[in-house]
């Protein structure tokens, strides 16, 4: 990842071996409300990049832009060298097949069992036999420490378990890019650690390009190779995790310290 917040912008070709996803001068607004303004950021291939920022800053919107669920008003969103802005549904779906998305509220299909939820991407996109799908679902559930819930319904699981089942669904087809939306929000410290370890385990096992949105700083430091901060619609700092902690940007420092005093308006 480039250390400059705008380094990704205008780079000759984002489809380098090092960059899996690149936001280039992205603007997004809903009516008069500006969500992102000239936002540029490269996401390094095979690394965990965490985007931090205030609540409502537009972090989750970045994940939706990368997945093509939102279209920017202006700018480019380049995934594996392909600009997905304005792309038709069919080629976009081909790109989405290589992505996993773990949603903030899990977004499990509540009418389907855990097994059917996790196997959904496999049934949709592969021609695996039932036995092969069963094997892969069992492996995915085992990897997140939930081997014995396959036959249960999502409503029968705790919030933390639902999050982990959401992870299993996101990784079951071993995607190249995994998007994690606020994976630890609303969880107790123990479950937060479990989720953090789960993400680290997924990264070790599959080596995907992970884009994580969260603001729980101990977890951010534990999982991130690179950290970027989004503030007022733009990336104000992006650096490897160790450098990011030493940032001289007063906004970043105030955020990291959780201080009420500083340039961030309350």
């Amino acid at each position, binding site marked *: 990842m480039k250390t400059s917040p705008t380094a990704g912008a205008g780079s000759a070709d984002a489809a380098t071996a090092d960059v899996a996803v690149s936001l280039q001068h992205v603007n997004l607004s809903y009516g008069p409300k500006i969500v992102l303004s000239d936002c540029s950021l490269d996401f390094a291939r095979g690394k965990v990049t965490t985007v931090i920022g205030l609540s409502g800053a537009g972090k989750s919107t970045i994940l*939706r832009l990368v997945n093509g*669920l939102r279209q920017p008003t202006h700018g480019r969103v380049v995934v594996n060298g392909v600009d997905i802005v304005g792309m038709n549904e069919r080629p976009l779906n081909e790109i*989405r097949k290589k992505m996993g998305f773990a949603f*903030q509220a899990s*977004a499990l299909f*509540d009418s389907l069992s855990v097994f059917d939820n996790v196997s959904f*991407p496999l049934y*949709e*996109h592969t021609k695996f036999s039932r036995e092969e799908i069963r094997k892969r679902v069992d492996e995915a559930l085992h990897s997140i420490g939930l081997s014995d819930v396959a036959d249960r319904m999502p409503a029968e699981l705790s919030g933390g378990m639902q999050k982990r089942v959401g992870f299993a669904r996101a990784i079951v087809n071993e995607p190249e890019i995994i998007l994690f939306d606020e994976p630890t929000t609303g969880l107790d410290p123990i479950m937060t650690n479990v989720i953090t370890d789960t993400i680290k385990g997924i990264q070790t096992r599959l080596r995907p390009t992970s884009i994580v949105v969260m603001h729980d700083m101990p977890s951010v430091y534990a999982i991130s190779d690179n950290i970027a901060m989004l503030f007022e619609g733009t990336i104000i700092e992006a650096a490897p995790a160790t450098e990011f902690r030493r940032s001289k940007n007063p906004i970043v420092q105030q955020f990291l310290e959780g201080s009420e005093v500083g340039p961030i308006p309350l």
Partner: protein
Amino acid sequence: MFRASTYLRDLPQPLPMARRFFEYAGGTTLMFFDAVRYIVTLRFRPSEAMRQTAFLIVESLPIVLLTSGFTGLVISLETAVSAVQNGFSFVIGGSVAYGTVRELGPLLTGIVFAGRAGAAITAQLGSMVVTEQIEALQSFGASPTKVLVVPRLLACLIGMPMLTTFADIIAVYGGYYMALLHAHISANTYWSSVNRFIDFTDFEKGLLKAAVFGIIVAIVACYEGFRTQGGADGVGRATTHAVVTAIILVFAFNFALSFVLFR
């Protein structure tokens, strides 16, 4: 001081209304043809379509039977005594069957189906929207039309004619028992009247109407479900809007189809 602009602002604006109408008509039409594309190319899960069909029929059947049964009873009650008094007992069975098979059977079933199945579809899809389940589907590269609309469209397309068949039978039998008990008309008079007034093509055309109503209910309910905004309040509003729109369209298409089919 009188300001015309203040009052004009509160009136329905013709251009935005027209735009909304064309957006709605265009959106539902595109969704319908998108779903047809998946059906024709057999890209859907038959098991899910069967599950939806069973669910929607079971949910709607008791209400359909009750409404159609009482309708048959009341038509017979209104016509039987006066028909007998005026020497027209041979028209009672025919009037019940004629009105039911051609008009009231499909129409009442369509209304009940819109209220029961249409509301269920919109509420379910609306809940999926507000809990990000639809976005989850899209994020995996799956089409919500293929996964969610097609099974429900097929379920309504199959379910409505089946329910209408039950409704027709119950209404005609209800009319028979009312004629028998209230006006003491013989079974032979009643059933020969039914045979004389309607033929099988009337029944077929009634089922064709029912199939069209099934498509209307499915598409409107799915479209409204996908357009849901906000939380529980939004789901409630979408569900109400879906039922009202579907019922109005069922009435409008019933008139149009009667005009075309029974002229």
